[in-house]
């Protein structure tokens, strides 16, 4: 039995796990659910040895366990199937399954590939799938790769005497329905050989495959249930928290949009990603787009930000037909993107707050072609005050700020640039509850000022709560439109139906 006791872990300013205790019994499938940012992935990384807890202990069959690396975890029978698959696509299936364990097949420095292939075939046999072990992994479907990952985890059976625990981190998020069923059948049939921890935010799936379910929220375990004693709606309520009410998303501050259309897409498409997308955003309107991975909504936002040139249809900004060829062009037309990857794309982390705020509109602090550093600082100071950005001064590098304050700096930059259209790509990702609320408030403020906002969010609640209108996408097309005026928000189930 693998157990975690009173695990806590924090990252610069964010408490990711608070006093978390879980047990995973032998031959048991344990579900772990929670929204993005609830701490599921952090817990998984601690169980798999890739991160160490600030406090708390792990035990294996009652004996204390210290994991310093994934290899340590593997030695103790803990394997992980990653959310972003860990396979090397340029290697063959067999090479991937035994990556790092080539020693078993090596004599006099030479690898016996034939033996490795045979062994790989045996591992795949345990799952009961028929995959060519000599195929390049890149040529496999995503679902098949998942099976290879699973087979890779099962090699631990041969290399350790410990009971096997396999951690599945969101294995279904990119799988089609039929493939999910296959995966579940495999997991159930493998229960005799191993225990599983199954992480997901899809409740019905978790209930379908698990024996027991833990619910996480804001870094805490907020519930533990036998899977046959609880229903999906119940779990959902616990997962999003009873504290959830319209006030959380500042619904009272939702102002109706104005008539002027700022952005209009007609038949917009990027080949291979999305097509026939028609929608418009009015002044002060928040349009949310809901969809699963692969729905095309990510590419749509990239395309509107100028990162991904459109290949069909037309786009109008402020009534003028445009083709966005670069972010530079989008920015000049007043389209600002708050990217999902805040650390790499959102801000130049090593640059000062002031430089980041003025980067998109340096002209506003220049005179005769020369940057006026004093003016730049005073503009930045103004924003620090207005957005309540917590920072010692405007000269500190952005990497020293907390996630919430970084996000405010990004917004300050777009306001300095005078952007009238904002693309918010998962604006609250990785933020704690308080910081999220501040972002929501800012979104309301911007909307009241007439800024048109396109919103992609981690959760449906957030999308519904913040938007005036929600579009759902599936397989690259818009499948439904929902009005979401304050007090008349659509139900999640209706959206879900149009998404999957």
């Amino acid at each position, binding site marked *: 039995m693998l157990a975690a006791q009173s695990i806590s872990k924090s990252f610069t300013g964010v408490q990711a796990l608070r006093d978390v205790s879980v047990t995973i019994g032998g031959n048991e499938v344990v579900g772990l659910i929670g929204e993005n940012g609830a701490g599921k992935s952090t817990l998984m990384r601690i169980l798999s040895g890739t991160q160490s807890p600030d406090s708390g202990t792990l035990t294996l069959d009652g004996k204390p366990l210290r994991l310093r690396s994934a290899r340590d975890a593997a030695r103790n029978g803990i394997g992980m199937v990653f959310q972003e698959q860990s396979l090397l696509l340029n290697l063959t299936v067999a090479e991937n399954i035994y990556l790092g364990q080539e020693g078993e097949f090596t004599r006099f420095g030479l690898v016996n590939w034939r033996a490795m292939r045979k062994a790989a075939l045996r591992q795949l046999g345990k799952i009961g799938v028929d995959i060519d072990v000599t195929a390049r992994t890149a040529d496999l479907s995503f679902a098949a790769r998942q099976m290879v990952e699973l087979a890779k985890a099962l090699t631990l059976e041969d290399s350790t005497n410990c009971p096997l625990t396999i951690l599945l981190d969101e294995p279904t998020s990119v799988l089609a329905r039929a493939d999910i069923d296959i995966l579940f059948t495999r997991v159930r049939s493998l229960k005799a050989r191993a225990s599983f921890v199954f992480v997901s935010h899809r409740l019905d799936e978790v209930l379908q495959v698990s024996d027991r379910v833990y619910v996480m929220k804001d870094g805490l375990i907020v519930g533990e249930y036998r899977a046959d004693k609880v229903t999906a709606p119940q779990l959902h309520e616990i997962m999003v928290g009873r504290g959830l009410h319209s006030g959380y998303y500042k619904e009272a501050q939702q102002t109706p949009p104005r008539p002027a259309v700022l952005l209009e897409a007609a038949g917009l498409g990027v080949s291979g990603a999305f097509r026939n997308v028609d929608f418009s955003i009015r002044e002060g309107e928040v349009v949310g787009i809901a969809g699963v991975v692969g729905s095309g909504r990510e590419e749509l936002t990239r395309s509107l930000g100028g990162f991904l040139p459109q290949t069909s249809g037309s786009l109008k900004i402020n009534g003028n037909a445009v083709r966005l060829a670069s972010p530079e062009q989008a920015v000049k037309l007043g389209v600002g993107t708050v990217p999902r990857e805040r650390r790499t794309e*959102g*801000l*130049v982390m090593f*640059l000062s707050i002031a430089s980041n705020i003025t980067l998109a509109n340096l002209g506003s602090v*220049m005179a005769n072609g020369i940057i006026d550093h004093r003016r730049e600082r005073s503009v930045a100071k103004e924003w620090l005050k207005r957005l309540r950005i917590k920072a010692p001064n405007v000269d500190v590098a952005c990497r020293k700020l907390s996630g919430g304050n970084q996000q405010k700096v990004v917004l300050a930059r777009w306001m300095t640039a005078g952007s009238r259209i904002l693309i918010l790509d998962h604006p609250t990702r990785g933020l704690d509850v308080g910081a999220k609320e501040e972002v929501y408030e800012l979104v309301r403020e911007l909307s009241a000022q007439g800024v048109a906002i396109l919103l992609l969010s981690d959760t449906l609640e957030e999308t519904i709560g913040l938007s005036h209108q929600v579009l759902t996408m599936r397989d690259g097309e818009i499948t439904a439109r929902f009005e979401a005026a304050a007090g008349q928000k659509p139900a999640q189930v209706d959206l879900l139906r149009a998404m999957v």
Partner: protein
Amino acid sequence: MTALSQLRDLPGVSSGALRNLAPPALLVFLVGFIALFVPSFLSVQTLTMVLADTAVLFILATGETFVILLGGVDLSIQALASLASVIVAQLLPSLGLGAFPVAIATGLVFGIASGIVHVGLRVPSFVATLASGGVVAGLALLAAHGRAITIEESGRGYTEWINATTWGVPNVVAIAVLVGVAGFFILRYTRFGRFSVAVGAGEPAALAAGVNVNRTKITGFAISGTLAALAGVILAARLSSGSPSLANQLLLPAIAAVIVGGTAITGGLGNVGRTAIGALIISVVRIGMTFVGVNIFAENIVFGAMLIAAVAITIDRSKIAIIK
């Protein structure tokens, strides 16, 4: 190596403080050290000579600073400097002063070409400039038929503006100061300068903020190429000769000057002032070696070691997981 890393890990020694204070401190120490043995080193005459000898290296290193700040590296500067020296030496008799703009414009053109190869064809800058440097070196050899070209007595008058001394200050020093001040100003006060630092510090974020990354990079390479050619021209004037191998030993000291001065090899952090300190350190070390009796042929051994040490001490491994 570990000793160097430990130096960085000492309590109270942040890599930032090390970067800002260590180079000037090292320069003062080196000058003091030499003066201890040779008190005349501190005479105005000797120090002026040191400055004049540093000018070419500093101008080369200033150009390189722009590219390194952008997160790249320009390996073509010594070839460009040599080609410029050949062009000046060849054209002086026929074009007179007109030979100088031609030589410097050649540097500009090849700098732009390297930049276009780098951003347009997405070739890493070290490969792009290694290759363009090879092309340039070959052109210099062809143009000069593989020989050094002496600037004859008749042409020397045209190099007066470089070799003369005005109010006791060698003109080369004045030119270097001019270049340095311009470089400092461009980086601190212009849009291009700010964009350079932003691209070097975080290219994806700069792109997302609407910075024209490609144009910024090409401009950086253009400046590097132009200054390399200017350095080559000055070198030709000082030595009264142009040669396809004139600047051949200058690439390593130029890059070392940038990095020893405290500009980060990873880009985004640094300025021309630091490069001035770095270039002086390299110069003083070179002179110091002759005083201490180290064979002057060994100077690049010392500069190579200094470059490695500077990078090893200042690079922040916590932010860069994999060094390729």
